[in-house]
C-alpha cells in the first residue's frame, strides 16, 4: 500500500537530511505509528505521502502510484484516495459539523444529494449523531477532531494519515479518538499515525516505527513507546 524505498530528503539550507535513506513498507489494512522526537523527520513522511514534498533520492509509492514522479496537476485526484487528520483539526469555523464534512465532498464534485446521504452516516459513525448542526466553537476539542476524522473518512479513502491527532486533546479524549481510528482501521483502511503520545502507543500495541535524526532506529510489529 505504501512503500518508501531508500528515501532521502534534505530541505534547502538544512545542515543534515530530514530523512536519510529511509525504507519502510506498509501493507494494506495496517495500523502504523511513526514515533520520534520533534524534528526527527516524521512529519516529512506524511508530507511525502501527500505529495507535498518530494524526496531528493529514492522512491515513494502510494496506492501503487509512484508519487516521486507524479506531476503536480495529478496531485488533486491522487489526494482523494487519502484522508488526513491534523493536530489543529483544520475545520472551517463558519460551517457546522455537517457542512464541514459536506464541503469536502462538494469541492471534489459530489452532489448535494450524495452529501445528504453519506454525511449523516459518517457523523453517526464517529459518534456525533445529533450534533450535525453545531459549529466548531460549540464542540469540544475531541468532538472537533471527530468532525475532522469524519471529513477525512467520508470519501472512504484507502489510507488515513494522522499527524499528531491527539496532540491537543486530554488523555481520555485521546483514547476515544484512538478507538475511532481503530474502528476505521478495522474497515480495511490503512492508518498511518505520527505521534508523541507514549500512552497511546503503549495501549494500542500496533506496529511502531521509530525515527531519530532522519533514520529508522526501530521497526517493531507490536511495539511500545521508548
Amino acid at each position, binding site marked *: 500500500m505504501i512503500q518508501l524505498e531508500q528515501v532521502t530528503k534534505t530541505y534547502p539550507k538544512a545542515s543534515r537530511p530530514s530523512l536519510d535513506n529511509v525504507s519502510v513498507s506498509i501493507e494494506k489494512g495496517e495500523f502504523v505509528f511513526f514515533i520520534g522526537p520533534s524534528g526527527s523527520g516524521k512529519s516529512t513522511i506524511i508530507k511525502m505521502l*501527500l505529495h507535498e514534498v518530494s524526496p531528493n533520492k529514492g522512491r515513494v509509492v502510494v496506492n501503487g502510484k509512484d508519487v516521486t514522479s507524479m506531476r503536480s*496537476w495529478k*496531485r*488533486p*485526484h*491522487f*489526494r*482523494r484516495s*487519502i484522508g*488526513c487528520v491534523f493536530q489543529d483539526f*483544520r475545520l*472551517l*469555523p463558519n460551517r457546522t459539523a455537517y457542512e464541514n464534512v459536506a*464541503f*469536502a465532498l*462538494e*469541492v*471534489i*464534485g459530489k*452532489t*448535494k444529494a450524495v452529501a445528504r446521504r453519506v454525511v449523516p452516516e459518517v457523523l453517526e459513525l464517529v459518534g456525533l449523531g445529533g450534533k450535525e448542526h453545531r459549529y466548531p466553537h460549540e464542540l469540544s476539542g475531541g468532538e472537533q477532531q471527530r468532525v475532522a476524522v469524519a*471529513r477525512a473518512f467520508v*470519501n472512504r479513502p484507502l489510507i488515513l494519515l494522522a499527524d499528531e491527532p491527539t496532540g491537543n486533546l486530554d488523555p481520555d479524549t485521546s483514547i476515544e479518538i484512538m478507538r475511532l481510528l481503530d474502528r476505521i482501521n478495522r474497515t480495511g483502511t490503512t492508518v498511518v499515525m505520527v505521534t508523541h503520545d507514549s500512552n497511546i502507543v503503549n495501549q494500542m500495541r500496533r506496529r511502531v516505527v521509530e525515527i531519530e535524526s532522519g533514520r529508522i532506529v526501530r521497526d517493531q510489529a507490536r511495539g511500545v513507546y521508548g
Partner: protein
Amino acid sequence: MRVKYVLSEVLVGLWRNVTMTIAMIITMAVSLTMLGASGLMYRQVDEMKDLYYKNIEVSIFLTQEVTPEQRDGLNAKLSGDPLVKEVLYVDKAEAYKRFQEMYQDAPDLVNAVKQEQLPESFRLKLNNPEQYKNIYDQYKGTEGVDEIVDQSRLLDKIFDILTSIQNIALAASIVMAAAALLLVANTIQVAAYSKRREVAVMKLVGASNWFIQAPFVLEAVVAGLIGSLLGLVALIAAKYLLFDGSLKALQGLLSPISWGDILFIFPLMAGVGGLVSAVTAWVTLRFYLRV
C-alpha cells in the same frame, strides 16, 4: 452544482470586500473608457483622413504679370506631370465668382475687392497628396508662379492635434490600467487570505486546481466586465452629450461617430477588461495560493 457553487462564491467574494470591488470597477471603467475613446478616435481620424485627403487641392497662384506663354507652358507641364491627377485652371473671373460665393455674407468685402486683384491659379489634385513637397520644389521657381498653397498642410496640423489627443487618451488608459491591475492583485490577495482555510481544506481533500482558482479569477473577470459596461455607458453618454450636444456645431468638420462604432469598440473594451483581470488574478494566485 459546481457551477452554482462557483458563481455563489464569486458573488460572495465581490460583496465581501465591496469598497475594494467598487474601486476596482471604477478604475477599470475609467481605463476602458479611455481605451474605447482612443480606439474610436483612431477610426475617426482614419475616416477623416480618407474624406479630406480625397478632396484637397494644391493651389498654384500665378503672379499678376504672368504672360500667356508662361501660363500655357505651366499648364502643359502640369498636365504631363505623373504626380498630378487633375489640373483645373481658374481664371480671374472664376476666382472672383468663387470669392463672391465664399464671402456672400460680407458684401462690404466683396465690393472692396475687384476682379483684377484676384490671382489666376491652377488647382491640382495629386495622385498621392503626401507628395506635395515634390510639386512645391518643382514649380516654386517657375516663371510666373507666385505662391504654392497646400491644403494638406493645414489638415496635417489638425490631424496632429487629433493624434496627440488620441495618444493622451491611450496613455491615460494605460496608467489607469496599471492602477486597475494593482487593485485586482490586491483584491485577489485579500480574497485569498480571507478564504485561506477553505483553500487549505480544498487542497487537502483533493479539489481540482481550476475549482479552487475559478472563483477568484471569475471574481476579477466579473469586475472587469462590469467596468467595461460602465465604460460603454460613459462612451454613450459622451456621444450623447458632446458630439450630439455641445460639439454639434463641428459636425461638418468631424465625421460623425455612429452607435455602430461604439458597439464595435465594446467587445475590445470588454475583452481587454476581462483578459487583463483574469491574467492578473491568475498570476496573483500563483504567488498567494500555491495550488
